[in-house]
């Protein structure tokens, strides 16, 4: 690891701990978060050049606390100037404590608290993602902006808006109370899943930087699993990420074009991710309540464990989709279920099942419906109808590589009469 990568890795791990210490000490989440961000930026510049300090955690806390107290003091001075009224916070409350104070016990709980806070349901999804990456992941605003392909100012807006909502709703800095914890944890998992998804579809060209989101999502989910080892759905989510990301290198060609699962070079799959993901999901299925992430991970594991596409255990996948459709019914699950049905009972059976969601408004006009219908019609030998469906899917997708793939499939059906 280079000095830069090593420093970056350490900073990201320490970020939530430092933030936790500051929020506990000063109580102001918004300002504490800004101060930590400034301390991280200072460290990212200084550490690779001057070496990592002996007590990096203490260094960061001291620098961040100094920024924060400076900021609070100048805000206080502003207030003093503005209103002649005297009664203010005694100034010694704002002084940075001596360095000895920094040796606090491990702040694992704060990481969890910060995950809950950053994905608070009062925040918009875009703000939840940005704040999670910054406050818990320790990424800079610039890094997040690059990953989402938006200007830095936009990410800064989303973060500042998130902090305003947190302040305005008076959300306390502690774990959510037990009755709402399960529902809130579901949101935390979903935010991590969205971060992963945002990154995993990108692997070439301008999208390349976004793949950092995938590794960041995996890192944060590992962290969540370490904090909640008994939660089967956290394990399922981590397994799903690993089993999906395992196929990254085989998913696209050098020119950026997409390779469908059945045509991927399986030698390129990441075996250690597959083993880790499979072990995780097997264990979770055996001893925790069933959930949608576990089921999706189990399906991914069956795909990943087949040595060749034709070895895929489709009856097993079909059974898992039936289960998934029962505990978490939605049209996208039905669509994937239809593919499994087609692989086991033939394309017409798959098309019949897909027909049940064609009128579903939630997926009306979605290109995946046309793409799956096209594949199944091609399987059934109806080349003209397959081609028309590929063409419609190509017109409807908003992804360039998908469009190219779909147009190629359509063209292939035209060439060979």
């Amino acid at each position, binding site marked *: 690891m280079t000095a830069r990568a090593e420093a970056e890795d350490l900073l990201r791990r320490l970020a939530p701990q430092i933030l936790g210490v500051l929020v506990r000490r000063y109580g102001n989440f918004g300002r504490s978060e800004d101060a930590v961000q400034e301390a991280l930026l200072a460290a990212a510049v200084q550490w690779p050049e001057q070496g990592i300090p002996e007590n990096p955690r203490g260094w960061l806390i001291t620098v961040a606390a100094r920024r924060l107290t400076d900021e609070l003091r100048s805000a206080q001075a502003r207030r003093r100037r503005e209103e002649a009224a005297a009664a203010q916070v005694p100034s010694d409350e704002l002084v940075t404590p001596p360095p000895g104070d920094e040796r606090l016990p491990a702040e694992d709980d704060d990481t969890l608290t910060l995950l809950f806070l950053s994905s608070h349901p009062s925040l*918009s*999804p*875009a*703000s939840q993602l*940005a704040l999670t990456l910054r406050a818990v992941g320790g990424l800079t605003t610039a890094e997040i902006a690059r990953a*989402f*392909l*938006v*200007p830095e*100012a*936009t*990410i800064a*807006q*989303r973060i500042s*808006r998130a902090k305003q909502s947190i302040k305005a709703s008076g959300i306390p800095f502690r774990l959510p109370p037990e009755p709402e914890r399960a529902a809130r944890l579901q949101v935390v998992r979903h935010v991590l899943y969205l971060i992963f998804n945002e990154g995993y*579809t*990108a*692997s*070439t*060209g*301008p*999208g390349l930087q*976004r793949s950092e989101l995938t590794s960041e999502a995996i890192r944060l989910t590992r962290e969540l699993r370490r904090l909640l080892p008994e939660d089967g759905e956290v394990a399922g989510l981590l397994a799903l990420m690993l089993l999906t990301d395992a*196929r990254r290198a085989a*998913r696209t060609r050098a020119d*950026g074009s*997409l390779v*469908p*699962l059945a045509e991927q070079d399986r030698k390129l799959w990441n075996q250690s991710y597959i083993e880790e993901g499979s072990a995780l999901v097997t264990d979770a299925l055996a001893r925790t309540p069933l959930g949608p992430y576990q089921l999706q991970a189990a399906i991914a594991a069956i795909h990943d464990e087949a040595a060749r596409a034709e070895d895929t255990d489709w009856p097993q996948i079909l059974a898992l989709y039936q289960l998934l459709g029962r505990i978490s019914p939605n049209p996208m699950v039905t669509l994937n279920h239809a593919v499994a049905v087609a692989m086991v009972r033939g394309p017409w059976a798959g098309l019949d099942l897909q027909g049940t969601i064609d009128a579903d408004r939630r997926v009306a006009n979605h290109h995946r419906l046309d*793409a799956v219908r096209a594949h199944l019609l091609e399987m059934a030998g109806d080349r003209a109808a397959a081609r028309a469906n590929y063409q419609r899917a190509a017109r409807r*997708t*908003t*992804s*360039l*590589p*998908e*469009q190219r*793939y*779909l147009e190629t499939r359509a063209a292939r059906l035209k060439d060979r009469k």
Partner: protein
Amino acid sequence: MKYVALVYNNPGAFEALSQADRDELMSEADAYLQEFTESGELLSGGAALADPSTGRTVRVRNGVPAVTDGPFAEAKEQLAGYYVLDCESLERATEIVTHDPAARFWAVEVRPIMDTAGAEM
């Protein structure tokens, strides 16, 4: 998802408005830009375009550029400006654009921007 909002009007449409309408349009446009920049959905980098008559259209045929003055299409309504939204869905983009005074005075077309990433098919 990212969407581009394309504002169309007749060249000279702004000048044709009454002073009161022009003032209203300007102040509403400022408020609109501020509101959705602050919500983190309107990205910086949009622009108003100069009159189409000041533009040129370029075609290269057999390596030879043919340059003509004026816009690509002979149409009454011309592209007058654009900006980019980054939001949840086309529905949300549509709802944002209904607050754009240009949509009230003229028309705004919302088009998804193609992503360079794709899902496994």
